[in-house]
Structures are given as C-alpha cells and as structure tokens.
C-alpha cells in the first residue's frame, strides 16, 4: 500500500516504521527536518519537509496515489484540515486523523473521516485496567465518553 503520514512525532514516526517494516511504501511529511530523526536509520521511506495543509506539499508527498492518509500532527485542527484535503481534493480511500478533542473526533467521524481519539482510548483502557486488573481491548471509548458528557 501507498501510505502518506503527516506529522513525524512519536505516533507518526512509530506508525511509519511499522508500515515500512511490513514492506509498504511510506512517505512522511513534517514541517521540521529534525523530526525525521525519530524515524531511525533503518527507515528508507520518503521524507518531505513542508506544511501539511498546503495542497502542493501533499501532492509532492504523493497523496494523489495514496491508499492511506494519516494525519498525526500536534494540532487537532491541522489534522482535520489536512484530512479533509486528502478526502475531498485527492480522494484518498482511507483517511485517518488523530484528534485529541473527543467532541471534534465524533463530529468529523460523522463527516466520513476515520478519527482516532487517543484521549478517550487511553483513558478508557486505563480505567479498565485500574478497575479490573486487565487490559481491555483497544476499542474506541469515544461513544462512552459522549454518553457521559454531552
């Protein structure tokens, strides 16, 4: 598969290494070249320096032929905007965005973006471990959050 990853933080770089190790074609985009250090020396995928909400940068990263686009920068809104560009302009079949805010994660999920809300996932897993001494399955705890809080 062709995979384009936006944001070379801990999650972006780890996912990139995993997919590269499984012999997929991986391109990582980050605004800072230092971030690419997290990829390690064994990663031989593509590295693109640039702003992930710039269509020209995404084009350079090969998003037109991507099967998967994953936005994992530090900014929820940046991830949301980049994901929508990938979805609506470049018609990438599988678009995933990491979103910390559970509400935004829910609303944009309804717009067809696969949203990964690490806030609800991590706190849900933790709750299950603390109360039952067992790690639950890494299912998405977002629905539970919404029922309790909104």
């Amino acid at each position, binding site marked *: 598969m062709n995979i384009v990853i936006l944001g070379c933080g801990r999650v972006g770089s780890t996912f990139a290494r995993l997919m590269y190790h499984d012999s997929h074609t991986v391109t990582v985009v980050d605004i800072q070249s230092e971030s690419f250090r997290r990829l390690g020396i064994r990663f031989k995928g593509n590295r693109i320096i640039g702003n992930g*909400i*710039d269509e020209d940068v995404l084009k350079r990263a090969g998003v037109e032929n991507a099967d998967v686009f994953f936005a994992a920068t530090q900014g929820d*809104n940046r991830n*949301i*905007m980049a994901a*929508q*560009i990938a979805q*609506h302009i470049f018609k990438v079949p599988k678009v995933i965005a990491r979103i910390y805010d559970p*509400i935004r994660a829910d609303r944009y999920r309804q717009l067809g973006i696969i949203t990964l809300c690490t806030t609800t996932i991590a706190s849900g897993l933790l709750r299950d471990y603390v109360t039952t001494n067992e790690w639950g399955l890494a299912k998405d705890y977002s629905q539970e959050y919404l029922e309790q809080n909104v």
Partner: protein
Amino acid sequence: MYIIIVGGGNIGYFLAKQLCAARHEVLLLEKDRARYRILAEELGEVVMQGDGCQADQQLEAGFGRADSVVAATGSDDDNLVVCQMAKMEFNVPRTISRVNDPRNEKLFHKLGIDATVSSTKIIYNLIEQEVGGGEMIPLAALNRGNIEIVEIEIGTKSPVLNKEIRELNLPEEALIISIIRDDHAVLPSGETMLMLHDSVIALVNADREPELRNVFA
C-alpha cells in the same frame, strides 16, 4: 444582529469595534489570556476568553443564537474548524472565514463555509492595480542622470495591452530598447505586439519621463 468573532488579533479587534459602533451585538472570543486582558481593558464585556473550536465553549459564547460567526485568526486550519463546528453544532446561518493562504478559498467553499475573505488577495489586487497602471521603475541613469533606463510592466488594465509598438504615441527622446517576455529579452520592431506581463525597457530623456509614463498609464 448577533455576531461572534473568533480571534482577537488586529483584524478581529477592529472588526469588533466597528460592528459595535454600528450597534450590532458583538462577542469577541480570544484564546490567549494575555491578549484577552489587553482587549478586555478596552472593549469590556464584549470580549470573552475561550477556544472558538471547542463545542462547550461555543455553547457558552452563545453560538446557538448567533446570526453570523466570523473566524478571524491567523491560522486557516483554526478558522476552518471554527466555522465547520459552528455549522455542525449550532447550525449558524452564516459563517465567514478569513483565509490567510488565498489558495484555500476554493477549498473552504467546498467544505461548507458560506463566505471567505482573503486579505492577502485584496492587498495583492490593490498593489497590482497600482503597478498595473504603468508604474515606471527606474533601472539606471546615464549621462549624469539626463537619460534614464526605465522598466514598465504591462498589466491587465494597461491601455497599450495588445497594441503594436508603432501604434504607441511615444514622446520624442524616448526609445523602447527591449521587451522582457517569459524571461527572454526580445529586440522589438514596430510590429512587436505588447502582451500581458511584458516588461518594457526604455531609454528616455529624464524631462520626457512623465510623457512616457502617460502612454502606459
């Protein structure tokens, strides 16, 4: 009308002031606490500290009864999400976004934003109007400043656009010596036609410069 402005930079601040003066009900939402305090000192309770992208704070700010929401921050991604959340959560009738990168205007319309304003594009258009009107740029002075080499760019509104050089009513002591077109220098003849974005290089007696300017303006 109840108008909510998100982002208390220069644009948000002046917009809030003007809309208040026009007797609209206005709320200016600013995320940064330090900036909020400065704004609140002058604008009072018109300003609220909060994140305009977050649904709970949008609720508190009264997005539910807003007639318009204006996203005026310096980040296009924040502006996009402010407007989209306002639509999805509160069905705000009119969302207006400032667009910092003019290329995003089309995208924002596609993603459901009602109106966009690109200050970059407005300023560019204003400058182009000035420059496109035949502004002459002096390149060099010869003979102790008596004769000048000038450059004139042909803009969309130039009166000499698509005219042959022999049709121009050039003043005496003015000579078109070259035309730069697509980065190539052309040695012109009377039949050479002036095209959009051409740079005309001319020699002119300094006293005749205003007349030459008039031909191209």
